[in-house]
């Protein structure tokens, strides 16, 4: 039925099957839209956030998807700036993933703020000393850049390309892509860092506060590093998952290996620096704020196991997997490593968001726990469903993996 929209030479399931695949996600997205509507109409009392947990599941989601979406800019950077041509095989997919992650994050942010109609105030009355201003500016512009990068991929759809001026425009944009990639890289580096800086500058929250260089706390750099380390792993993971689900070989194994190798090296550097940072923080920064660091881990479920899992199991282990050429040749190992690395960056963002707020500062304030309301979870799931649907549509109708056709035949 929709075959005229599908690229020639690739295998896609029947329309019926595709709709059946989309249906549950659409239901999930529908529930999410309802929950978002509730939050916008009735206000944030629909969530379980409160004055102590002023940030909750949604900020965690924002931080996590933006970290994972780093695959887009970093792949672009490697391809267009460092000229790693092998990555052309995944660049389109990475751009779509990046667009999904960033647009999802911006959408959730718009629900998360108390007065979404005033979101543009940041551009009107900017406080340039705030990390959040930097994040807002960079994310908005980078989302625009991603949309511009996404556009040529859309324009090359089989039907759209029949419009002559679309293709002309696509061709012209394509020529300028390195400029956009460079801008995207610049923006991404900054806001990934600013998201880390967001917490690192919290002088009043010893759990998050870090010393730094110039105006940037160490979390600024660690967030950049962890994002670019896991970005390729996420691209690897999604590509192999899509490959599994669609039953098509999408890229050569060498591409996987390259992504893993990049991820591995960056991860090991990250784990090293993170460990140094943790030691300095526990022994210098936190005690200076009058905190005995053992207090950070005195409240279940946030025991020291969280720290160990984050750094060793979800940091060091995937790094070692990725760095071993023998392991890299095996797809199951690559998948294990990618899952661990992605979980690691998610756990890091979760800890920075939730544990920072959960650890009491005033001695007479109790430790509090937070559990999201269904509206928050539904909104969270909406972003997932939105991502799956948009990716599925893109995968079906656009050329995300240039190598796919030749991998299939001949």
């Amino acid at each position, binding site marked *: 039925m929709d075959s005229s929209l599908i690229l020639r030479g690739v295998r896609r399931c029947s329309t019926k099957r595709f709709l059946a695949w989309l249906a549950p996600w659409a239901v999930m997205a529908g529930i999410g839209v309802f929950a978002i509507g509730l939050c916008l109409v009735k206000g944030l009392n629909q969530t379980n*956030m409160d004055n102590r947990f002023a940030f909750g599941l949604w900020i965690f989601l924002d931080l996590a998807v933006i970290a994972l979406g780093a695959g887009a800019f970093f792949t672009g950077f490697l391809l267009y700036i460092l000229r790693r041509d092998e990555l052309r095989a995944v660049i389109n997919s990475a751009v779509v993933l990046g667009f999904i992650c960033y647009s999802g994050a911006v959408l959730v942010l718009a629900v998360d703020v108390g*007065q979404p109609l*005033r979101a543009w*105030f940041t551009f*009107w009355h*900017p406080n340039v000393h705030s990390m959040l201003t930097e994040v807002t500016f960079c994310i908005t512009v980078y989302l625009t850049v991603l949309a511009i990068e996404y556009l040529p991929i859309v324009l090359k759809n089989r039907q759209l390309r029949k419009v002559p001026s679309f293709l002309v425009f696509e061709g012209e944009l394509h020529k300028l892509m390195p400029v956009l990639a460079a801008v995207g890289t610049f923006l991404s580096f900054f806001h990934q860092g600013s998201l880390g800086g967001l917490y690192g500058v*919290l002088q009043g929250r010893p759990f998050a506060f870090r010393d730094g260089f110039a105006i940037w706390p160490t979390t600024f750099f660690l967030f950049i590093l962890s994002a670019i380390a896991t970005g390729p792993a996420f691209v690897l993971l999604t590509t192999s998952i899509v490959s599994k689900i669609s039953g098509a070989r999408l890229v050569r194994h060498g591409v996987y290996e390259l992504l893993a190798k990049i991820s591995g090296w960056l991860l090991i550097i990250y784990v090293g620096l993170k460990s140094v940072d943790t030691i300095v923080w526990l022994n210098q920064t936190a005690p200076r704020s009058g905190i005995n660091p053992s207090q950070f881990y005195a409240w279940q479920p946030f025991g020291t196991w969280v720290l160990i899992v984050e750094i060793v199991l979800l940091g060091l282990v995937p790094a070692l997997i990725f760095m071993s050429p023998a392991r890299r040749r095996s797809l199951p190992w690559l998948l294990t490593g990618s899952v661990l690395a992605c979980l690691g960056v998610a756990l890091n963002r979760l800890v920075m968001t939730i544990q920072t707020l959960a650890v009491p500062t*005033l*001695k007479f304030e109790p430790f509090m726990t937070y559990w999201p309301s269904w509206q928050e979870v539904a909104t969270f799931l909406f972003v997932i469903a939105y991502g799956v649907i948009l990716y599925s549509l893109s995968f079906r109708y656009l050329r995300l993996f240039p190598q796919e056709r030749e991998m299939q035949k001949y």
Partner: protein
Amino acid sequence: MESAETTRARFAMVIDLDRCNGCGACATACAVENNVPPARPSANERTGLTWQRVYRASNGRQFPENRSVYFPVSCQQCEHPPCVSVCPQNAVDVSPETGVVSQIPVRCLGCRYCMTACPYHARYFNWFDPKWPDGMETTLNPDVSVRMRGVVEKCNFCHSRWQAAKAKAAAAGKRDLDPADYVPACVEACPEKAIVFGNLDDPRSGVAKSAKSANAFRLLEKLGTEPKVFYRSDRAWVRRLADADVAVQEKEATRG
């Protein structure tokens, strides 16, 4: 009318914890003065709006040696406020005239970053639309506007009272406020006279003297926020509660 520029001041308060008995008059007076709406049925102590919140703490000992202390905690009006620099749109500011950390609710977009930055949990978010029972809006203080849902608010040392005092001084042609004209609602309402309020820069003021007294202290002093709300107590265990460091064995204590 152009009013004469008042001299700069650093307003502060000293709360005597040995006098405070936790009656809650300050919190109530604050809500009435500043048009803080009553709670919706589903609001709780975590989603409520209490610019002046009274915490109960104890010496942690067993009955009958257990003793209480009540900490009235409002915005601590820090000299180095962690909340100001984080606001993405300049909705938080420090007034050079009063040293008070002001919150501009009409510019706030409700991102709540300042709340995560504040170690005193003194900032509150309007989770609900402000709503008074029918007719009760006629009892609102005309000098303070009502904040809308979705913005952050907090204590501003009864800013409207400062403005009224300033206008009064200007009308009398004076540069300085009469200290008796500017007293926040909580200070006025305290039946135990536990709160002393005044200009820290004025060495003759009661607040300047009390703040320097031996048993005066501030909350979480090591964070370097330099609050302008001081506390005092002759009891050593009360003063120890001001530090951030919680002994781990105490963690299961207190309220759930």
